[in-house]
């Protein structure tokens, strides 16, 4: 072989090698572009580029990650039904049990966020009953605790977090919230004595006004009966005294529920903005 031919062959050899290296990188480049858009929080465009990759992908190397990141993009845009669709797809295209677990966990987290917590519990139970995830019981319980928080059951949340090692912070937090709550039933029963329910919930002004009205109408009604003005007595008793008496009971319950909502929301605000652990 002449030296020219040899040089020619060497050049072709290197060009081919180079082209193969570049060609196999086209899909990786597209993936990296999409991932960069995702990292920059440019979620709409990230979804477009991931969808482009998925459409042209033949070997499916990036299928799980693309579907997963599309799901996360939709989740960050508050588009939960689209997110659920893509997490289901990522579950179907997962190749390892870790990937399948992560996908199902994301589905559970979305159900927690949009407060369809019954569904979240069903999914958590089915995860727990799946043999290949049996070593991840702590993580499952962690998210079960969060599902209880979002369904306003701080009791069960605290109990669930206690089953996990090293999760003391959340146990203590849930217990403190639980102890702050008012009992609406108790408020109602206390109000059989007018004003007592309102005092229990801390609404003293409303309590005193309630006592005042009940005393006034009660006195007028009984006075009317004593003076044998039965019709008057019945009218005042039913139209006025009863209205203020039942109103006092209803009010006490309402105050308890309002205050509980405030406590819940401030707890949730704290968890969203100041808690450093994993969140839905």
């Amino acid at each position, binding site marked *: *072989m002449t030296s020219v031919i040899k040089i020619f*062959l*060497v050049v*072709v*050899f290197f060009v*081919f*090698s180079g*082209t*193969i290296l*570049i*060609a*196999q990188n*086209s*899909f990786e480049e*597209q993936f990296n572009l999409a991932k960069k858009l995702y990292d920059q929080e440019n979620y709409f465009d990230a*979804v*477009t580029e991931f*969808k*482009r*990759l998925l*459409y*042209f992908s033949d070997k499916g190397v990036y299928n799980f990650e693309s579907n997963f990141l599309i799901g996360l993009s939709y989740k960050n845009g508050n588009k939960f039904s689209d997110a659920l669709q893509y997490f289901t797809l990522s579950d179907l295209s997962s190749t390892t049990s870790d990937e399948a677990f992560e996908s199902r966990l994301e589905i559970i987290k979305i159900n927690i966020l949009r407060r369809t917590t019954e569904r979240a519990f069903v999914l958590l139970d089915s995860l727990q009953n799946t043999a290949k995830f049996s070593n991840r019981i702590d993580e499952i319980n962690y998210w079960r605790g969060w599902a209880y928080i979002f369904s306003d059951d701080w009791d069960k949340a605290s109990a669930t977090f206690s089953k996990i090692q090293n999760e003391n912070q959340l146990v203590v937090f849930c217990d403190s919230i639980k102890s702050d709550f008012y009992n609406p039933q108790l408020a109602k029963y206390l109000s059989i004595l007018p004003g007592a329910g309102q005092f229990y919930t801390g609404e003293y002004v409303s309590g005193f006004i309630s006592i005042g009205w009940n005393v006034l109408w009660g006195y007028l009604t009984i006075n009317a009966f004593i003076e044998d003005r039965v019709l008057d007595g019945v009218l005042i008793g039913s139209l006025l005294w009863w209205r203020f008496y039942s109103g006092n009971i209803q009010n006490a319950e309402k105050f308890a529920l309002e205050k509980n909502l405030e406590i819940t929301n401030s707890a949730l605000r704290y968890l969203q903005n100041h808690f450093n652990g994993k969140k839905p």
Partner: protein
Amino acid sequence: MRKIFVITFLIQLLAFPQSTSFDFHSPQNIKLFADHLFCESDYLRAIEEYALIDGQFVNDTIDFKIMLSYSNLGLFKLSNEVFKRINNGSIIYPDSYLLSMKNELVIKSTPLEYSILSSFNLSQQKSFNRLVSVSTLYGEKPVVTKNDFLSVFSAEDHDIISHLYDYKFDPPYKSPTLAGIFSAIIPGSGKMYVGEWGDGITGLLVTGLFAFLAYDNFKADHTARAWLFTGVGAFFYAGNIYGSIASAQIFNAKIDFEFSNGLKVFLENKNYFLPEYDFCN
């Protein structure tokens, strides 16, 4: 040495076709991806992708798909902007013309003033005639007789469209003045005339109760209490007359709402008489 070179060269030759450089942004690939997005009903993304296609590869079918995408997203003005670019000699022009009519109808809700195209086929002519006819329901007066109007539509639609025609051009309004007069004579009767039986009877009972209490107290010489009840009774009597007039107006607004909502729902179910396009199979 030579053998090693030859062997590696042949291996790479085999490997080469499987890893050809893939251009995601070639015009053909952009179009393929855009068509896929369109078929997945991801219309906004499809529009964005179609806009990336290089000028020389753009054709009227693509512009029509962009029109359809905008229309499906509810962006009717933008859809009609795209219509301006479509060549009036192209094969897709009649369909895009019909779509532009639909967009115009949704935007303006007034009778359409379009001329029929000579290039319409039979089915497109029907769509055109039906769209123009149904748009006359947005006008002030009927343009043709009711029978002529109904003849344009298929038999299965006659019931609904006839009902809509009647509601528009001969609405069963109630007169607010009459309602007021009725309630002035017999409290509550104005509301009953409008169809609000519960409110009418309540009005009658309340006014009647206070009138009775006033009369009773005047008879028993409790003058102060009697005047109080008279005042309250007069308050409710006047309020009931006012309320009867207002409820007649609300009833008329309900007729108007039932017409416009009913027409909208009917047109959406019929896809505005446009054919269903299938670009995906």
